[in-house]
């Protein structure tokens, strides 16, 4: 059996993702210290045997912060994606299944959300919430917000898919057999939306990772001292030239590699959904 080149890339992407997730989950053992521990005598140090990626301006080990930050971004982005996919399934799936006024109403709400640029919507909603919260609360607020606001485009896709399922022969037959509408939705319609749901879930993860990074750089994401890719990338703000401290680009390279890997895995999900 021949293995196509695309499958090799996908396998490689999966391996990279597993490696990065594994490393971030092993941060307690791999990192030389906690993400907030300060080495005040070695502030803003270059990479060394003790600090593989050097230290930041207040002496925290950058390698440790990258590992812990990756853990936060990589665990919470899928959690937010799961939340948004569930919301999309509930709103879009139900609206499409019920049709008529319900569908129009749901689509009007999604249109309203989609009429605002994503980043603008995020900063507006983030501004409504207090900014001076504890780091843990800021992590939860950031990813909860992504999950609660990111369902709209997926809901649109699911609404149209559920709408076409509503008119399908097997659903008509089930209706004619007297199956209650709720049971029909949970047992027959929702399982048929699974491929689309999987695809939407995978699409949302890299989108949420990038959104968190954008919010973090703008100072509206995860609060210090908690690390995330956004807060780690904020360090690039102080750079004078690219060649000066290239190790500061490690979080960016890692982010690009992870998002690319998700995109490669995603194309597989698209095929499944199709």
């Amino acid at each position, binding site marked *: 059996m021949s293995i196509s080149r695309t499958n090799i890339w996908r396998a490689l992407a999966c391996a990279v993702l597993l490696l990065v997730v594994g490393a971030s989950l092993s941060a307690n053992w791999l990192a030389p210290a906690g993400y907030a521990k300060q080495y005040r005598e070695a502030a803003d140090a270059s990479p060394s045997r003790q600090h593989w990626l050097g230290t930041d301006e207040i002496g925290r080990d950058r390698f440790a912060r990258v590992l812990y930050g990756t853990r936060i971004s990589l665990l919470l982005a899928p959690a937010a994606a799961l939340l948004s996919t569930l919301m999309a399934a509930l709103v879009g799936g139900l609206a499409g299944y019920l049709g008529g006024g319900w569908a129009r109403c749901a689509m009007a709400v999604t249109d309203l959300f989609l009429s605002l*640029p994503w980043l603008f919507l995020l900063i507006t909603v983030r501004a409504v919430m207090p900014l001076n919260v504890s780091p843990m609360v800021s992590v939860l607020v950031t990813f909860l917000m992504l999950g609660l606001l990111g369902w709209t485009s997926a809901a649109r896709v699911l609404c149209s898919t559920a709408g076409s399922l509503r008119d399908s022969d097997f659903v008509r037959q089930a209706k004619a057999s007297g199956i209650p509408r709720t049971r029909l939705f949970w047992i027959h319609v929702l399982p048929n939306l699974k491929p689309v749901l999987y695809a939407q879930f995978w699409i949302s993860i890299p989108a949420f990772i990038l959104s968190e990074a954008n919010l973090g750089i703008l100072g509206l994401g995860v609060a210090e001292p908690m690390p995330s890719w956004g807060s780690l990338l904020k360090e690039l703000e102080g750079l004078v030239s690219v060649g000066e401290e290239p190790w500061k680009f490690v979080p960016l390279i890692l982010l690009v590699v992870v998002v690319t890997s998700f995109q490669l895995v995603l194309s597989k999900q698209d095929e499944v959904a199709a």
Partner: protein
Amino acid sequence: MLGRKIARHGLAIVATVLLGGLLSAALMRLAPGFDADEAELDPHLNAASIQALRQARLEQHNIFRFYFHSLQRAAHGDLGTSNSLRQPVSLLLRERAPLTLRLVGIGLLLSWAVAMALALSAAWLRVSAYDALTTVISGTFLCIPAAVLALLSVLWNVPGALAIGLIVFPRVYRFARNLLGKAYSLPHIITARAKGLSELRILFWHVVPVAGPQLLAVAGVSVSIAVGAAIPVEALCGLAGVGQLAWQAALARDLPLLTNLTILVTLVTLLANSGADVIGHILRGHEA
């Protein structure tokens, strides 16, 4: 038919903008700390003045009344005063909108020029290595957060408009490449090629009419992407435009300013999308 379509779009825009404004006003009203006013901490104020300040805020407790009064004021050109910058919102918008318009306009032109050049060349050449190269280039830009591209533009002393262009280009390229790829694989275009028609003739006579309306829809969406990209670019490049204003308003929790900006941005994106839809409709009408 066209008149009805424009009227329908107009109604949808008005309804969405009004609903968006109401939602942001509701968010503002429900936000923690809404009732608190720093002015009350001023030691120069006596009890009566503080009471007057509280009385003035009572009007804002009912969301609908508050929103209705805001709309009434807006109809007379009074968009309120920014809490953080202590300046009329209309003045702030007047001062900053031209820069954002210029940045977004140039950024869109650049992104479309690069995206279409790459997409057209990939569709023309049909060389898998070249296709892979253009996909990798656009994919790499797609995987870099917009704010990082803005930071890199500062680092390399690149104009903000180019940063916006680089943020928008991979999204446009993706759609354009797929649309052109599909159009070039249509049977009548393959026949035209076999008959020896020049590539330019094929492009303008056979491909553009097929992919044009959908590309117009992408153009509408790209305006929204560019407006979104203006926020990190202006904020991090120190450009005093509407995007930077939105960021400052978010950091300062300046909710009156954010409400107005929400309405403005919603209006711009809806107009762009509806404009693209109406033009597409006109073009399709001409073809028919």
